[in-house]
């Protein structure tokens, strides 16, 4: 358990939750609910706090809770912290959300029948992560009922100690963690291993589960206040693709390298797995990559530049080793969620 992991588990978003006006049947309308929502949690789990607050004013009917931000229905299976990082680039504190208990938009959102649906979605993601890391879902399928309940309980309650105990049984380590001072046991073990250059930073697996939420802009902006608003899920590309680690990457494979490897369509030369038709690259600065189709008669090329990478509410330096990012910032279901903004612009090709 590293200091960083503790911060991630303690992280919370202050929410100011307003009941949608169509569901207010009393005067005066109820005040908004002020809730601290765990970053690693999910919005529907807040119902136990919200229902008592609003129940007196709700119209009769069955509760089907859903949330929206500025008119955008929120996908409940995305962790709360990720939603905040993606939709509120200029952090709003508290974050103002609207809650509905009626009129579930089932043509837009997956159905959610309370905690069971959220738990199922979590376990399903965990299975997928296990599959990516080990090649099969066996260790998840074979979890005892008690372990599964403990694991989910630890996520519900934000209990990192309990979580670490159960999750270590799953044997889903992706990177050897040489950056962490081991808080629990004596640190001599990790100090000794630094002598062995081969073992330190050793990659145990070749695929890392990542979920990347990508949005692109055509023009620069200085403040996130000026950034284009995401008012439609079609403006976000959801990329559920593992990062492939190769032997030749070494232990200094950075966050920058990982993001580029995940987006070969924007950063062609970073992809080792490219076929023979890889495009020619002209200048390869740190900031941007060019790609040029030799067949094309066009004289402009498009340049993609990483504008921002936000993970667990922070923007790590892109030079941070990816192994550190994964070990410390991933979510409990073993996925690393990254919100990435790319600036894509056209430029004249150098002759």
């Amino acid at each position, binding site marked *: 358990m590293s200091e960083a992991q503790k911060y991630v588990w303690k992280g919370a978003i202050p929410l100011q939750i307003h009941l949608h006006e169509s569901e207010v049947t009393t005067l005066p309308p109820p005040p908004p609910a002020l809730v601290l929502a765990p970053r690693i949690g999910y919005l529907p789990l807040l119902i136990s706090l919200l229902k008592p607050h609003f129940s007196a004013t709700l119209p009769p009917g069955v509760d089907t809770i859903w949330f929206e931000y500025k008119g955008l229905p929120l*996908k409940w*299976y995305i962790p709360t912290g990720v939603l905040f990082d993606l939709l509120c680039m200029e952090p709003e504190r508290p974050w103002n959300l609207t809650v509905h208990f009626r009129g579930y938009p*089932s*043509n*837009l*959102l*997956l*159905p959610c029948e309370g905690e069971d649906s959220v738990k*199922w979605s979590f376990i*399903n993601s965990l*299975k*997928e992560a296990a*599959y*990516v890391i080990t*090649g099969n*879902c066996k260790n998840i399928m074979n979890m005892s009922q008690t372990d599964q309940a403990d694991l989910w309980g630890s996520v519900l309650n934000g209990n990192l100690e309990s979580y670490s105990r159960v999750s270590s049984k799953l044997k889903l380590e992706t990177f050897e963690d040489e950056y962490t001072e081991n808080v629990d046991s004596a640190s001599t073990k990790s100090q000794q291993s630094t002598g062995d250059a081969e073992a330190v930073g050793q990659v145990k697996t070749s695929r890392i*589960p990542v979920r990347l939420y990508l949005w692109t802009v055509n023009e620069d902006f200085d403040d996130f206040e000026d950034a284009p608003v995401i008012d439609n*899920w*079609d403006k976000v*590309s*959801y990329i*559920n*693709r*593992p990062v492939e680690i190769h032997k030749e990457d070494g232990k200094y494979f950075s966050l920058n390298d990982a993001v580029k490897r995940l987006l*070969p*369509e*924007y950063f*062609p030369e970073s992809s080792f*797995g*490219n*076929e023979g*038709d*890889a*495009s020619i690259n002209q200048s390869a600065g740190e900031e941007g990559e060019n*790609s*040029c*189709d*030799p*067949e*094309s008669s*066009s004289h*402009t*090329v*498009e340049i*993609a530049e990483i504008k921002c990478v936000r993970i667990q509410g922070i923007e790590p330096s892109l030079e941070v080793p990816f192994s550190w990012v994964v070990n410390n910032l991933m979510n409990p279901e073993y996925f690393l969620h990254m919100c990435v903004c790319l600036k*894509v612009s056209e430029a004249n090709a150098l002759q």
Partner: protein
Amino acid sequence: MDLKEAVKDKIPWDGTLPLNEFSLSASTFSDKWKMFNHSFPPWLWNPCPKHHLNSSHKVEGYLSLENVCLVKSCEEEKNHGSLSWKAESNISQAEEPFDHATLVCPEFEANHYDFHIVYSPSYRVPVLYFRSYYSDGQPLPLSEIEKDLPGHSAELLLESKWTFITQEEHPYLNRPWYKLHPCGTRDWMKLLLSDTYTSSNKNFIEQYLVSWFSVVGQVVGLKISLEMLNIEEKKLFETTASDIFE
């Protein structure tokens, strides 16, 4: 020496389809489908519009077969484990999508189905997504879809609701769809095809989707013409396909 033995890879095949082979396998599948499954409209390739960089990088995409009409005309068909599908022509349906359905199935209920074949980078296999709606466009609840499925699928579904047909968001379309969960795919593809696999057999990878669909299609009652399979596969198909569902 048996030629097959000589060229057989020392590393056994793991049952997966590499990402960069998906579009090739998809076009082989849709070509053969067009050739041998006349009663159906063709599968269409939908490139993903995410990126528009001037590069020769292969475009991502998925296959779609839409507005296929399930005609529930009599009880016998359901009991035999095969379904009667009436396909709408994609070309003419552009003008009058639902009128055409009414024309074809005047006295019968028609449940409409859309099928998409999408590649999963996590599981490294294709995944079948589908959704269903009544003629008026209203989505079918899962309980109704279960009634449409051939006999054995419905049983499997009831046994393990969470791990067979699941409802998830379509990877590209931001809408809820149903999908056949892919976690077992690699294993049964290996079961189905490992004897025919050799690393030098390019045809094998092209045929991946055809072989895959020969099994998966059965779950939703879409039978492919056996002409689409090559001879070795046909033999295997007959013997192992039923094992997969045991």
